[in-house]
């Protein structure tokens, strides 16, 4: 006898509850939408790559890869920071390799004794030309665009996705 009216009272109560709940939901969702827009990571548009001076032509290595540090500008949000990157100039200066291991991104060392690059983190090994020998890395060291201009060897710094057999540039 009382089952039917009871449930209608309950549904009325839950209907009435909709008002305050929807007001609270409105406040929170408008703040939430703004929060997502506000916090969304911003990827700087791929700026035309700058040619960075690395070394004068007469100082290029003859026999073994030469480790060099270059500084490239990075725009992140409000800040332009100069970050240091390590590169290897291969003998003759025809090719420049990024020292970043394509496995997890540690910087590789040149081993004079064994004539190869070795990664200190997880023991990936690369030949003197950068090609992969062994270890968890799935590809060889990444070559960087380079050129010789006005007696200077110049490179464009680029970074690539880790752990991929293909070379995919990071934007």
């Amino acid at each position, binding site marked *: 006898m*009382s089952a039917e*009216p009871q449930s209608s009272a309950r549904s009325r109560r839950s209907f009435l509850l909709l008002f305050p709940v929807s007001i609270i939901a409105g406040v929170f969702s408008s703040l939430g939408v703004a929060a997502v827009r*506000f916090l969304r990571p911003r990827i700087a548009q791929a700026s035309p790559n700058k040619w960075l001076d690395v070394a004068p032509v007469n100082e290029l290595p003859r026999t073994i890869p030469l480790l060099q540090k270059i500084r490239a500008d990075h725009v992140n949000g*409000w*800040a332009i920071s100069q970050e240091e990157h390590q590169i290897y100039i291969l003998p003759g200066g025809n090719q420049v390799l990024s020292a970043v291991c394509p496995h997890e991104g540690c910087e590789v060392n040149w081993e004079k004794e064994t004539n190869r690059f070795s990664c200190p983190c997880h023991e990936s090994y690369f030949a003197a030309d950068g090609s992969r020998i062994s270890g968890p890395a799935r590809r060889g060291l990444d070559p960087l665009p380079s050129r010789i201009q006005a007696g200077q060897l110049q490179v464009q710094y680029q970074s690539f996705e880790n752990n991929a057999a293909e070379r995919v540039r990071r934007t």
Partner: protein
Amino acid sequence: MNASGGENQRDGITADLTRPQAWLSTTAGIVLMLLVVQFATGLLLAFYYVPSVDHAYTTVAYMERASSSGSWIRSLHHFGSQLLPLFLFLHVIRLFSCEAYKHWKKSWLAAILLLALVMAAGGTGYSLPWDARAFFSTRVAEGLVGGLPLLGRLSRLWLLGGDDISTVTLSRFFALHVLVTPFLILLVVGWRLAKIGPIQRAGNTHVATNDLIQQLIDVGQISEDEAKSPMFRSVIDRASRQANNQKDEGPEQPSRYSVVLRNCIAAGIVFIVLGIWAARFPAPLGPSVSEVTADYLPRPGAQFLWLYQSLKYVPGGLGSIVGVIIPGLAILILLTLPWLNLSSLKKYTKEPQRLIAGVILAGFLLWVLAMTTTSYLSDRRDPRIRAQLAKQSAQEETVRTSPFRPVSIKAGADSTAQSRTDNAPPTAYLRLCVSCHGPHGEGATQGTLRFPPLIGVSNKPGRTVSDIIALLNDPKSYGIEPPMRSFATKLSEDEKSQIAEWIVRLK
């Protein structure tokens, strides 16, 4: 029968929603909503903000000009911080009108504490954007605190974290604003909400028939068989309904639902108004401290205009009394009012607490209203001030609409370490030369005397290391006049060459 109960409840709600004075008791909901908005927007702003004098302004400008929704979020935070004390004050007035200091002492205490904390949060927050008005407000805070009797010097040093406004000061204001005051506010609000929870639940318990019967069985009044008889059941049912109706009928006790609904509607309306306002009017961001010109007129936010205007009228040293001691004492009296022993005042008035709170609240209200109005009027009436303020807001608008340019931050620590070792002068220089030529060889003037800078001296002819050593021994022979004197005997040969080599390297 239950349906009729529902009807009654709905009619009660409709009657309650249309009762105008019931809407006066929605300040709590509005304050709670504004606090949620302040916490949410403040948390978001902290994702980009950097509390250091060389980046604070840049990061705020980035949020304002480059990020999506940043301007709206900042504006919500800015104008929300002005509405919060307003509605808290209204809340206190409402509590005063129902004598909360007597009947709901904890509500009273919480409201006054929140008002004080919200003003403190507003004061510390004003410094954070590190624009011109932030800088001036920090100066004023410094002056107010420094002018306190006895403790002035000490509290000024503690506030600034040193002898001067610096990046350390900004860090302190940041920590006070985003960690200390929000934590205290959360404590007070949490304590307050935990307090009302059980009271409201107890007041609304409907004694159900089944519960009553079960209780009667439990205490052994009736057997389970008796309880099953329909007649007995209907008797108990009627009794419990009567008891519940009596509870609901009191006009002074609106149901919990309608209280929540009213608070939600009022808070929702205030939020919509605030949101539209914030979308239309961005929060002000003056020129950065390094770009500010001498004719800049700083104006504080609406919640501090009364203080700003009052400080124009009181002679310098008394500013701290107007700005710190009087408001502080008023808050202290209001806080302790429920527990004050005022029996000695009983011969003047029956309600000494009401008198004291009334005088303080009315006095403060009149003062704030008068000063805020005067401040607005005097800014509007003076054509020069009006023109300058219009010029400033036009400049702000130009800056706001121009694209944001990222700024360069210094690369790794190695370069700073490098320059530090490069710049460190030899100890002998610090002993004998620094008072005239400056700690970095930058030179100085004292009255008519000019002490030339040493920076770049090595570019001039005749200033090699050996030349400088010779010059230290006999300045006259290099055509250098007193007050530069000979250091031939005051410096060892080693010290002379150290100084000379350092000067040659100076850049």
